[in-house]
């Protein structure tokens, strides 16, 4: 029936069955984006995580972390070139098969509306973080032309936050094609747009995935050197 918009799951396109119950009856009706079975597959990052990169420690072997910090982050922090730039990272979900597919659909296949799914959680998290500036990780012009939108910026827009156009990208080779070492030892891939006032600002960087943390650290280094007080980051997946 068209009279009431038949809501469907944004991912699997199944019709959303109404929630029957006392709560459903009495509480405010929210826009529902995913069906319960898809929603179930999103794994929230909870419990003990790495102090810096938010990596869950519960299913990580003892030998890969020291207390509340993982060896990856130790390696970053021991390197004087990268130490202390990124204060810490927050991630929303585990980068499992489902999310991998969902993000691929979102950014590579241009299903822009999927941003709405994450926007809800992004909003929730940003409420806790109180940043002065929100900086989405930029795409190169070529990449932007290819995809049509910047996935990080779209998340912020859907969440209803203003974005700061501070960074630009100079290098365009795809990150996902490189190894960790290649990524770390890359020359700086970002530049700061000239007229930005960063002195003493608390900045939150936003990106879709935290893999090695090199992109975020590149951006963090640049911003901190330009005078930012603190740099945190927020990603969908980890």
């Amino acid at each position, binding site marked *: *029936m068209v*009279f*009431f918009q*038949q809501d469907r799951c944004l991912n699997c396109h199944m*019709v959303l*069955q*109404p*929630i*029957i*119950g*006392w*709560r459903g*009856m*009495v*509480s*405010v*009706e929210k*826009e529902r984006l995913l069906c319960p079975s898809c929603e179930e597959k999103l794994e929230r990052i909870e419990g003990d995580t790495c102090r810096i990169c938010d990596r869950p420690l519960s299913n990580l072997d003892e030998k890969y972390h020291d207390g509340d910090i993982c060896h990856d982050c130790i390696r970053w922090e021991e390197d004087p070139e990268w130490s202390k730039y990124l204060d810490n990272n927050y991630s929303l979900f585990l980068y499992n098969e489902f999310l991998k597919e969902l993000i691929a659909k979102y950014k590579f296949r241009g299903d822009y509306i999927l941003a709405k799914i994450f926007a809800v959680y992004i909003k929730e998290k940003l409420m806790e973080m109180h940043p002065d500036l929100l900086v989405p990780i930029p795409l190169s012009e070529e990449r932007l032309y290819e995809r049509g939108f910047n996935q990080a910026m779209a998340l912020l827009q859907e969440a209803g936050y203003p974005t700061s156009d501070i960074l630009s990208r100079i290098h365009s080779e795809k990150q996902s094609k490189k190894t960790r070492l290649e990524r770390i030892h890359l020359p700086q891939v970002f530049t700061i747009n000239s007229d930005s006032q960063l002195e003493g600002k608390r900045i939150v960087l936003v990106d879709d995935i935290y893999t090695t943390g090199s992109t975020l650290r590149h951006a963090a280094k640049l911003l901190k050197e330009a005078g930012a007080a603190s740099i945190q980051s927020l990603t969908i997946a980890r």
Partner: protein
Amino acid sequence: MNGKYVYFAVASLLGVLTALVSFLPFFLLSLGYLFCLAKYKRFGRLQLFTVVVTIIAYFLIGEWVEINNKTVIPASTTTFMVRYIQDPKIDGDLFEVQAYDTNFKEKLLIRYTIKSEKEKAALQRKEFYQCLCRVSGTMKKPAIAKNPNGFDYRTYLRAKKIYWIVDIQGSPLQPCTPMKFSPIILIKQLRFNGIHYLDNHFPPDIASLSAALIFGDKSLLTPDLLTSYQKTGIVHLLAISGLHVSLFIGMIFYIGIRCGLTRQFMTNFLLFTLPGYAILTGASPSVIRSTLMIFLVLLTAKRKNHLHLLPIDAISLAILIFLLFSPLVIFDVGFQLSFIVSFAIILSAPHILQRYQRNSIRMLVTSVTAQLAALPLLLYHYFELSLLGIFANLVYIPLFSFVYLPGVYLLYLSHILFGKTPTLLLGLFLKMIELSNQLIDLLGHFSFGRFIPGKPSIIMLIIYFLLIVAIFYIWEGNHYTNRSLQLLILSITLFSFQTAWNWLKPVGEVTMIDVGQGDSILIHLPHGNGNMLIDTGGAVNFVEEKWKLRSKPFEVGRDVVVPYLKGKGITKIDKLILTHGDMDHIGGAITILKELEVKQILMPSVAEPSEEELAIIQEAKKQGIPIRKVSVDDQWKSTDSEFYILSPEMNFTGERNSGSIAFVAQIGGVSWFFGGDLDQEGEERILRKSPRIAVDVLKVGHHGSKTSSAEAFIQQLKPRVALISAGENNRFGHPHQEVLDRLYETNTIIYRTDLQGAITYRFYHGKGTFSTYLP
């Protein structure tokens, strides 16, 4: 549209309530509802518009019914052409049946007093359908309620579009002419014959239960058993309910498929026969609701590649359809309970009930859900609730669903097919019913676990509903750490706030309850300072032939006084004052002793107590209630109130009325004289002893008879107000004109129960006013 019909069902209900109950509050509620839909439920313009149209449409339907809900028959009519639309009720020598007047196109309630035992037997065998009869008799209006919380027969019948009771002189079946055949009549005849078949071929215990479960007819059950079912909170099992219909339909469907018929055929077959089944089972609102829901579910299941109908949508559509055809059904208790309980269970099923895996626990939770949902309505209509009901249901729901229901069908079918039933099976079944009836009887007389907070006011009802929704809301939630604690607090509030309010309310009252010809006066002091009941009313029963006796004759104590007290949340009587041994004063006492907690009984100190008094003394002994024989100069006090006995003398020997307890009292800032049926002789004795006695309010002696209220007595007392308790058109001619004249002479304001119903003096901090129930 899935899951959305419920918003339209609520809209239709609001529309009907606005038209039929009260315009302004429900109109405002409707506006609030629309606001909520727009703001919180994401309703767009078109959808809101449809909801508005629904409300208006149902409002207009309600208005239309309301405007036409009045009689068109002139009061002087004596002859009626009627056809009978119901199985007659035959009780003792009373014959009662609903009929439809074909000239005026209006329903009537026909009453007839059966002349002989032979005629009664003949009428019991007779079918009343398919004939057009000419009857003549006198029309009268149904009785109205004359006490607060009393049953208003006129309103009750009006909701069924019946405005007149016709007392006919001749037999209801002469002269009659046969009528055209119709399928509905055929089904009604089938029902009538089916019930009689049961009555004639089975032992009474089985016949009555089978008639209730197969045909939805409770008239074969004994009134005492029915009362016990009611008190234990399992009476819904005797009504044909949703559970019952779905089990039955399930049985038929399964048998059909097992016999090799296709699902599609069975679905069509059921769709075709369901309406007939509803009529066959008496077409009560709960039957109509459940058959309608199943009908809708089956209908949508037929449509391929379409989502099947959710239960919540089925029940919502059922409300929409039901109210469309008969908006007046909202006044039917069965309709209200059936819908609200089903609705609560449907809302609880996906989350709350789902959580409990063990079958027994889940059943307990379902039972609690049903009781919680029904609570405000049960209190509103019956003033009490059995908490035992939750556990009684736990035993009886499975017993009825899986033993009795298949059992009665099996016995009935085998008797029809083979002309008899296996003796062993019958015996086993009989024994089981006997045992379960004994258990119900036992539970019914158990006073523990009964919740009697009084009839809730509208505000109280709203509080109840909010608390109950809050309980379900929290119960459903998953992430609460202290959920149990919150539920406990809410439940305690639910079961105590009304009682607490009754206790805190600083208003006291003295009420002369209208018990017809008789006396019963309640003195209620605020803050738990005491409840006193002076006399209990009582009807005088004449010895009749056995066939003329009603199975449950009207009894003032049970039918008037107890409901009045329970409606006020009064369950404890500190002093039951029985002024003297006449039936019209103490006839209801035994019921009071059984139904309420009586702390003490006061009786006059007389040499020869009456038979009724002896029976009461015996019952009191059984229950261990102390009896105090009072005589002149006895007295007692309570906060702000004093009581002083003036009569009788100790060990009084003389005429019974003359030995009535008479006392003066100071209550609510005024002085009172209560004297039972004290006669002029007794009045003289009091005047001799206390020549300067004067009071503000006089309970006029002996229902206003001229044998009491001597001129000198009235002149001396100089009451400002006189209260007379007498029956409407009583055969003694009470109150006598002489007495009324004497009271006029002293400029006394007279209140009479026969004309004004119950009379109440309500006081607050030593000041009060009189009011009457009827204007």
